């Protein structure tokens, strides 16, 4: 590959693919350590029960068993912490009950871990766990989101009404005034269905203790190993942070579910020193269903006030959000900071008020899942807007167009400042490439085959790269939101990049290498990217919220800039010029206006063999790091069009066409960006059509395996028509990039449901909740026909 060709903007093949394609990747469960032992967690079969007693003697004496631990053994260590303090409207802090690593007095959801059994093999650990006897005193279970606050049973004593907080944002009085003068009000009750993340690699951990230096090593399926280490050492186990190395090797998908500090790896680290052997645990899929933090689960009402021309006057929203049994690591900020702040969407609605009641229930904890709050906001808003268009007999794209934000920067009534965007551009483009004009003919053709065809729209906005740290801190964040990077130039001029942005499918090893190679004028193969090891990488806040390139990439660029600055000084010395006269371009340091130059590798060599070197002014070596704290979120946006065919006899829905037009600002690797959109669309369409986590009234998980939780498979999805427009670059990061990982999951669910409702309008169906399974669609048709 020629170094002269720009790498940014090119769909280069991924550097990480060889190992994945040949089976030579190293995922956590692939790692087996000398003297390996294995763990099994005994889990509660009940949703809610007091623990009268736990008898472990028989398990302890079972063949191959090395140790059995219960919550009693772990007293004295902290609970699993929550990283964001939300305050209620009255100023009181959220209720923050202890989340014990192993259950102490009570179990609060099916799958809640009670005991850790460590044995020579998994089979022996499982067999021994089955011998543990527990005397439970069953309690009524609190399950339903909407009624949890009136359940009459408390999941936690400190929250007798199960309310964790009641939070609000926006100008309530202004909203009420606007409603009073509205010509039209659209009202909608809306449920955002609970999802189970289902990364195909189950969570796993392998913890080892070394007596030699009193240190720990933890291999774990994590999106952010440094955060995992910080939370585990400082808040739970009280271990010295520098004595714990956390390695997240190849990780098989995360989608949010691997951000959090979980009980299992924490217990393993705690036990590793006591057992004196490395301990490995890998979730069985049924454990993943019960214990990976779930996503979504909102019950809301939305009211949109409009004037007679369809101008939005105000939006009023009330949401009840299910947090599950405990506060997961970032649970509290998802239905608040990452949700209600997005309710303006792409529209210049002057007044918005949203109140959120967050409740505890006897279900698996709920936290960020791809999109995290933003899909819930987008779904609510785009369903409401489409309904308003239908009620006011305005073409849905036209109603949106009348309300688009057109002047930037734009300060929304719910606290965000959009730096840039062009919503008309993505809408116009998608209407064109989706051939919306041809829809009536396609609808007629479908009708010929007895099928109802519908078209649905969605215009989404996303906020990526949550920032800046100081404002987030004022809003309750208990962590920074920066990212760290390091550039290590080797004496031969080859480069290793260290980033805090873990890659588990996003292709950072390629994208980040493209950026660095481009800036330094190197070939792609001369730049490698390392991530996921606290022993190698200086620090990292990890990968979530579509932040990696915008935040992590910027940290790397800042480090690259320092390398170039230092390189100029070295070159100036070697070329006997002044620092200010040296320019750097395409891998060469050159004295401006002359042909005197030094290649990048020559400068690197000079830095490490500093014989002819300004040692009095400059340190040897060529290694720089940088931390970057963004000044604002980035705001990707786009427009989606979905066409469905509904079979009225069975209720089956087929996605006939799905077209996306996204503005991600500048794009480094279009192939990877499109792939991210595809994946997001699949998860969004999965939410809309297939996926829905269900509990029975007594808190049993009814969708606890792939035979009951419907995952999108190849035949369920169409080929996607995805296009990234020549967008509006982000104004506050040097690459002008915005983030693309969650867009598809955010924008697609309302497009799908709007399309189904359009198809069913002729049958009198006006409302439908996700997932729109054949059974549910059939029921809706039956109910409307009565």
């Amino acid at each position, binding site marked *: 590959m020629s170094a002269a060709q720009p790498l940014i903007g090119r769909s280069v093949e991924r550097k990480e693919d060889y190992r994945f394609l040949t089976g030579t990747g190293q995922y956590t469960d692939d790692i087996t350590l000398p003297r390996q032992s294995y763990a099994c967690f005994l889990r509660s079969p009940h949703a809610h029960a007091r623990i009268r007693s736990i008898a472990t003697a028989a398990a302890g004496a079972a063949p191959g068993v090395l140790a059995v631990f219960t919550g009693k053994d772990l007293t004295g260590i902290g609970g699993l912490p929550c990283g964001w303090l939300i305050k209620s409207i009255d100023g009181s802090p959220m209720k923050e009950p202890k989340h014990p690593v192993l259950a102490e007095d009570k179990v609060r959801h099916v799958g809640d871990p009670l005991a850790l059994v460590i044995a020579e093999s998994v*089979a022996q650990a499982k067999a021994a766990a089955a011998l543990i006897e527990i005397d439970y005193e069953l309690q009524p279970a609190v399950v339903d989101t909407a009624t949890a606050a009136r359940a009459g049973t408390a999941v936690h004593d400190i929250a007798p009404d199960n309310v964790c907080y009641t939070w609000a944002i926006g100008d309530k009085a202004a909203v009420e005034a606007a409603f009073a003068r509205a010509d039209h009000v659209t009202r909608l009750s809306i449920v955002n269905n609970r999802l189970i993340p289902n990364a195909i690699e189950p969570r796993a951990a392998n913890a080892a203790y070394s007596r030699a230096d009193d240190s720990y090593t933890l291999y774990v399926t994590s999106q952010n190993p440094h955060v995992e280490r910080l939370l585990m050492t400082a808040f739970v186990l009280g271990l010295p942070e520098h004595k714990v190395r956390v390695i997240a090797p190849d990780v098989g998908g995360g989608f949010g579910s691997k951000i959090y500090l979980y009980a299992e790896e924490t217990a393993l680290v705690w036990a590793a020193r006591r057992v004196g052997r490395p301990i490995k645990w890998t979730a069985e899929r*049924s454990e993943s269903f019960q214990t990976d933090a779930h996503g979504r689960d909102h019950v809301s009402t939305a009211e949109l006030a409009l004037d007679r021309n369809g101008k939005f006057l105000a939006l009023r929203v009330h949401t009840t959000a299910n947090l599950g049994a405990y506060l997961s690591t970032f649970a509290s900020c998802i239905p608040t900071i990452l949700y209600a702040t997005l309710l303006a969407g792409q529209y210049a609605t002057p007044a918005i008020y949203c109140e959120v009641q967050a409740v505890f229930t006897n279900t698996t904890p709920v936290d960020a899942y791809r999109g995290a709050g933003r899909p819930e906001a987008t779904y609510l808003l785009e369903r409401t807007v489409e309904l308003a268009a239908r009620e006011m007999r305005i073409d849905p794209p036209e109603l949106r167009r009348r309300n688009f934000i057109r002047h930037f920067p734009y300060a929304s009534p719910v606290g965000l400042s959009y730096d840039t965007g062009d919503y008309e551009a993505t809408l116009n483009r998608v209407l064109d490439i989706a051939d919306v004009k041809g829809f009536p003919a396609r609808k007629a053709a479908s009708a010929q085959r007895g099928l109802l065809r519908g078209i649905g729209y969605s215009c989404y906005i996303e906020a990526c790269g949550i920032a800046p740290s100081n404002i987030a801190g004022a809003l309750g964040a208990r962590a920074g939101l920066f990212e760290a990077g390091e550039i290590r130039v080797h004496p031969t001029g080859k480069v290793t990049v260290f980033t805090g942005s873990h890659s588990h499918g996003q292709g950072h090893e390629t994208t980040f290498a493209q950026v660095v190679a481009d800036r330094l004028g190197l070939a792609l193969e001369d730049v490698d990217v390392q991530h996921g090891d606290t022993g190698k990488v200086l620090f990292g806040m990890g990968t979530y919220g579509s932040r990696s390139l915008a935040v992590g990439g910027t940290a790397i660029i800042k480090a690259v800039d320092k390398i170039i600055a230092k390189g100029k000084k070295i070159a100036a010395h070697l070329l006997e010029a002044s620092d200010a006269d040296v320019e750097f371009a395409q891998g060469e340091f050159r004295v401006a206006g002359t042909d005197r130059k030094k290649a990048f590798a020559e400068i690197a060599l000079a830095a490490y063999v500093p014989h002819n070197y300004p040692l009095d002014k400059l340190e040897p070596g060529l290694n720089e790091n940088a931390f970057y704290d963004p000044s604002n979120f980035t705001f990707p946006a786009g427009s989606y069009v979905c066409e469905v065919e509904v079979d009225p006899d069975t209720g089956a829905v087929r996605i006939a066409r799905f077209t996306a037009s996204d503005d991600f600002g500048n794009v480094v690797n279009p192939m990877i960006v499109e792939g991210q959109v595809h994946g997001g669309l699949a998860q969004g369409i999965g939410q809309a059509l*297939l996926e829905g986590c269900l509990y029975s009234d007594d808190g049993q998980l009814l969708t606890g395996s*792939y035979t*009951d939780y419907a*995952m999108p498979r190849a035949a369920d999805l169409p080929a996607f028509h995805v296009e990234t427009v020549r967008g509006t670059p982000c104004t506050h990061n040097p690459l002008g990039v915005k983030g693309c990982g969650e867009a598809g999951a955010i924008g697609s669910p309302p497009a799908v449901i709007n399309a189904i409702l359009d198809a069913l309008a002729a049958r009198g169906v006006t409302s439908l909740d996700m997932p729109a*399974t*054949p059974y549910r669609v*059939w*029921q809706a048709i039956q109910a409307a026909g009565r």
Partner: protein
Amino acid sequence: MSQISYHRPTALAEAARLAMSDPDARILAGGQSILPSMRLGLLAPTALIDLGAIAELQGVRSDGRTLTIGAVTTHAAVAASKDVMTQIPALAQLALGIGDAQVRNRGTIGGSIANSDPAADYPAAVLGLNATVRTSARSIPADGCFTGLFATALKPGELIAAIEFPLVARAAYAKFRQPASRFALVGVFVAQTGGSVRVAVTGAGPCAFRCKALEEALARSFTPQACDAVRIGPDGLNSDIHGSAEYRAHLIPVLARRAVQQLLA
């Protein structure tokens, strides 16, 4: 150490003897249902009797009047059999729609029938085509084969040797999949020979069953429209998160209509 023993007999008689001697042994025909059940701890047999090495249980034979399919013939082999494709294409099509490619490469017809999963496809074909299930001890007529939820007329130690499908004039199978498991939420098999029509339903009840109302309607008029007039009651039908008994009842004539349409096409 595992307590389970494993047997790999090479003759059906030997397999039957082993099965008879240990009532808690389970038969491994293709293993696609048993092995997941064992992993989930739902099943803990004392022994596994693997039929995979018994040559007499393999393959498809045709004598012009009957197609005989050995018990451990895989779904993929049935789907790809020239004899099945030409003589009972509906059966090949049904086999091609079972589970997924990997399951079809392991799962067997005998295993499917012996398991009598309420949502399995083959039982509908056995009933619809009025097949005979030949076992290590006797022949069981289709109508007496499936007795309830995961229950058949097979006695302890009795193993399926082969299924004998009489050739029919025409047949078709229409299935509506449960979205998660991809098993039949409802599947309807329609077969017509001379004036007689058989309609068998899977997925809807505790085990596969014949639907007399549809058989009579189609015997009177073998048209798709004949199915539309038939109303099936929900009593006794399955109800779960994927569909109520009413929904399943509704789907039976809908799918019968589609099978008839296919068959007339």
